C-alpha cells in the first residue's frame, strides 16, 4: 500500500482537530497553550507534506518561520501566564476575564 499525500493530510487534520477540542475544553492556561502548539505542529506537517509531493522547498521555509513564531509566542505567553498566576493565584482562564489587573 503506497502512502500518498492524502494520508499525511488526514493525519494533520486529525491532530489539528484534537488540538481544537483541547482548546475548547481545557481551562488550565498551560494545557490550553500546549493544545495551540499541537495545532501549529499539524499545520507544519501539512506544509511539509505538500512540499515533498510538489518537489518545492517553499513549504519547508514556511514551516521554519512558523516554528520561529511559535518559539516567540511561547516565550511571551508563558511570561503572561506567570503574571496571571501571581495575580490570581490560579491558572484558570475563566478567572482572568477582565483586561485590567
Amino acid at each position, binding site marked *: 500500500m*503506497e*502512502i*500518498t*499525500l*492524502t*494520508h*499525511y*493530510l*488526514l*493525519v494533520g*487534520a*486529525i491532530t*489539528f*482537530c*484534537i*488540538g*481544537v*477540542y*483541547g482548546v*475548547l*475544553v481545557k*481551562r*488550565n492556561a*498551560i*494545557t490550553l497553550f*500546549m*493544545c495551540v*502548539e*499541537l495545532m501549529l*505542529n499539524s499545520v*507544519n*506537517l501539512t506544509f*511539509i507534506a505538500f*512540499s*515533498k*509531493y510538489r*518537489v518545492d*522547498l*517553499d513549504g*519547508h*521555509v514556511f*514551516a*521554519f*518561520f512558523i*516554528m*520561529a513564531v*511559535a*518559539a*516567540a*509566542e*511561547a*516565550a*511571551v505567553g*508563558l*511570561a503572561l501566564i*506567570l*503574571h496571571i498566576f501571581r495575580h490570581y493565584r*490560579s*491558572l*484558570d482562564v475563566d478567572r482572568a476575564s477582565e483586561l485590567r489587573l
Partner: protein
Amino acid sequence: MVIWETIFFWLFSLGAVVASALVIWLRTPLYSAIALILDFFFFAGLYVLLSAHFMAIIQVLVYGGAIMVLFMFIIMLLNLREETSSIEFRVHHGLAALVSLSIFAFMATGIMALSDQAGIKEVRANMGDATQIATPSRIPGLYADLNEEGLQSKFDAKIQSFADGSATPADGKYRPFPGAKFDIPPMMKGGEVNGRPVESADFGTVEPMSLLLVNRFVVPFELTALLLLGAIIGAVIIAKKRL
C-alpha cells in the same frame, strides 16, 4: 523500500494521534507536557519520512528542546499538581466535540475531494473557460492542480522586464540587492519517475534550505530575528514583578 515507508508511516502517525489524544486526556499538566514531547518526536519521524531532514532536526531541537523545557520549567515553578478546574458540564464537552468533529468533517471532505478523480473530471467538464487554470496534477493522490506553466511564464516575464529595464523592481514590492541572484536552488529536483518529478538526494537538507533563506526569503528571515528580539524584551518586561 516502499514497505518500510508504509510501516514507519503507520507507526509514526498512530503514535502522533495517540500522543495528541493523551495531551488532552491526562489531567496533570506535567504528564500532558511529557505526552506533547513524545508527540513532537513522532512528528519529527514523519518529517524524516517526507525527506525533510533539516526540519526534523529543528523540530527536535526547538520544539522538543527549547519550547518544552520552557513549559516544564513554568509547570515546575508554579508547582501545578492537578488541573485547577475543568468544565464540569457535559454539555460543554459535547459542544466542543461537535465543533471539532465538524471542522474535521469539513477538512476531510476537502482532502477526499482532492483524490476523487471522477468528481474532479465532472467539475472540470462544467467549468468551461476556467479549465485553463486547473490542469491534471502530477502528484499521486491529487488530481487537480493550478496551471503551473502559465503562472511560471508570467513570473519569468516579470523578472525579464526587470532585467532589460522595461520595468523597475521599485514598481513592485521589493528592490533586489545589486548583484544578488534570486535563484531557486538547483538541487531540488532529481529527475522524473513515471512522469512525475522526484526530489533529489539532498532535498530538505541544510544546503538548499540555507540557499533559499538567504536568497528569496532574506527579508522575512531577517524580520524573524527582529521578532525574536522583541519576544525576549517583551517576556522580560511582562514577567517582572513590578511593571
